[in-house]
């Protein structure tokens, strides 16, 4: 299998789609599809953090799960540079072929309460990936687990305890230690801090940033909280109803969004400063479109304040309008949108 990949990229996702069938009736006939991920392309550069944002149901979690092959994509390519130096298309690999690749790409889950087995000790939880990948020597495993626990700021003496003895933030650290057990290159973090309290959230974000620097990790950071994403991401990708609407460097995207949906998202985030209360409010009307029955043309047109006739009929494609800035909007070049000052 020979695949080509841009040198600085570690992962390239091309035209990824994932449709879930809607079944109905006695014979469970497929009557339609939920277009959870609809022709999404992006790439991850080595050592960067790409933030994937969007409202609930926009397909950001499905995208991240497809990248990991926790879900099988309907079509598309996921080209990945493995640590052994080969380049593979993860979308087409069989389960057996996937196994060696899996240790390079790991996941951190949203809910630290349900993602840890309550009947396993920390040693078992963090040590399991090691065991599965052939580190069966117990003392070796002990060393590695205590090293990992230290790395995430937990005391190695806690190794024999069960998850119930830990708070939400500490559990999330355990989840991070488990994800790092096999020295992955890429970590997919799906809403890693949204279940945590604000004071603890900051600790975990700081930890993730420190680990990235220390271990040269690449993050795909899925979140709905734009403030968190801004903090941690080098680049941000915005999704709406299964489509990528804008990708760009964080600061530029927040300062001057190119897609009307990005603008609306940024305007809607409440700023924690009473002196910056928005005097004139420009909020999006309506609701997120149904991915099983999306509108014609640009999916955002029924809610878009700038929509024209072309938006109702033609689906825009993601294009690079300025260096490094991709947007999928017919009017991207003419619109002057406001971001965060």
């Amino acid at each position, binding site marked *: 299998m020979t695949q080509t990949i841009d040198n600085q990229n570690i992962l390239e996702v091309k035209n990824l789609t994932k449709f879930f069938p809607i079944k109905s009736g006695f014979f469970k006939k497929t009557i339609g599809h939920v277009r959870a991920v609809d022709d999404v392309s992006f790439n991850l550069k080595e050592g960067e953090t790409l933030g994937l944002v969007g409202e609930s149901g926009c397909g950001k979690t499905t995208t991240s799960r497809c990248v990991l092959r926790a879900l099988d994509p309907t079509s598309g390519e996921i080209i990945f540079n493995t640590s052994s130096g080969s380049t593979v298309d993860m979308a087409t690999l069989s389960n057996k072929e996937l196994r060696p690749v899996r240790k390079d790409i790991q996941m951190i889950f949203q809910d630290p309460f349900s993602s840890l087995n309550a009947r396993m000790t920390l040693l078992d939880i963090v040590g399991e990936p090691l065991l599965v990948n052939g580190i069966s020597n117990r003392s070796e495993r002990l060393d590695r687990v205590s090293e990992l626990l230290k790395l995430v700021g937990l005391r190695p003496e806690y190794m024999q305890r069960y998850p119930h003895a830990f708070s939400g933030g500490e559990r999330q650290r355990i989840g991070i230690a488990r994800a790092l057990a096999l020295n992955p290159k890429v970590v997919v973090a799906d809403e890693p801090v949204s279940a945590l309290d604000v004071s603890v959230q900051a600790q975990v974000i700081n930890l993730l940033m420190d680990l990235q620097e220390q271990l040269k990790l690449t993050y795909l950071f899925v979140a709905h909280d734009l403030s968190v994403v801004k903090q941690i991401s080098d680049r941000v990708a915005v999704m709406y109803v299964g489509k990528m609407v804008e990708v760009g460097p964080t600061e530029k995207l927040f300062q001057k969004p190119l897609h009307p949906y990005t603008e609306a998202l940024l305007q*809607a*985030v409440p700023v924690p*400063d009473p002196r910056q*209360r928005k005097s004139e409010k420009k909020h999006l009307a309506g609701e997120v479109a149904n991915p099983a029955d999306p509108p014609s043309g640009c999916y955002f047109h029924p809610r878009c304040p700038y929509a024209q006739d072309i938006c109702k009929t033609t689906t825009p494609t993601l294009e690079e309008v300025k260096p490094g800035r991709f947007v999928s909007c017919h009017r991207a070049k003419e619109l002057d949108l406001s971001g965060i000052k």
Partner: protein
Amino acid sequence: MNDKNTLLSVKDLKIHFPTDEGIVKAVDGISFDLYPGKTLGIVGESGCGKSTVGKGILNILEKPGRITGGNIYWNNNGENIDLASFTSDHKTLRGVRGSEIALVFQEPMTSFSPVHSVGSQIIEMIRLHKDMNKKEAKEWAMELFDMVGIPNATTRINDYAHQFSGGLRQRAMIAMAISCEPKLLIADEPTTALDVTTQAQILDLLQDLQEKHKMAMILITHNLGVVAEVCDDVVVMYLGRSAEKGPVDSIFHDSKHPYTRGLLESIPSINSKQGERLKSIVGTIPAPFNRPKGCTFHPRCPSYIKGVCDTYTPEYLPLVNNDDSRLVSCFLHHDPEKEVV
């Protein structure tokens, strides 16, 4: 005892939950005043007792919780009644609930009955508190639907909760809450389950309704951005006690309690720089049975005074003598000698 202008005055309210393992002091002495037409924000992290305060005001606590001390003075057309002195099924209290003080819950999905149409639930509530016949109540319910921005009121009134999206369900919940034109609306995390764009819509709606009906509002939330956007006054809670109270601007720009400052510094803001490290509060929230002695915040406090903060409990006192608008419970601002009782 109570100023004529206040609508609600909570004095040293205590709500305890006796359990097999010990008494959980969910709310352990909290005081605040609320004036007509104003919005008070109650902020804090999970487990600080903010929701219990909201339920305690209406005495709809879950078992085995009960009010063990303090007063809740409600200004009933010039006459002060103490809501805390009634049993939860007392006639007076039942008259106040719903018709004068209404509550909006966090989870719009679980707050409606799934087997009755949303309209019929609202009509039931109207007929319970108002002298209206079925037809009048239905007309009023449809008017309320228009008021809160639910389209096609005539057909929507017969729909069930599952046919509504999250945002619409929260609107229906608000329609129900304002159906008896209450003087006070308690909103417990009204936007937490919603996406940012929907959150902005709901906050706008609440503010519009408040202006139109001259309602007072208590907004219980963990989101400091939401507080900055809508509140006039803020109470910051930590482990069942009020840490600090003041006008929103001074809480955000001139906070006195180390916990408030820590909280403000630890939230990622959409205005902050990318890649910047967040300051965080060390440690985690202590378990409910294991409250620290003295000031409950002292183990996490960056400026705690040895021998004082870990021994004596700070009182909740005005920052400047006789000025009730700024209250703080911290030894950094009060002389411990005077307070030791």
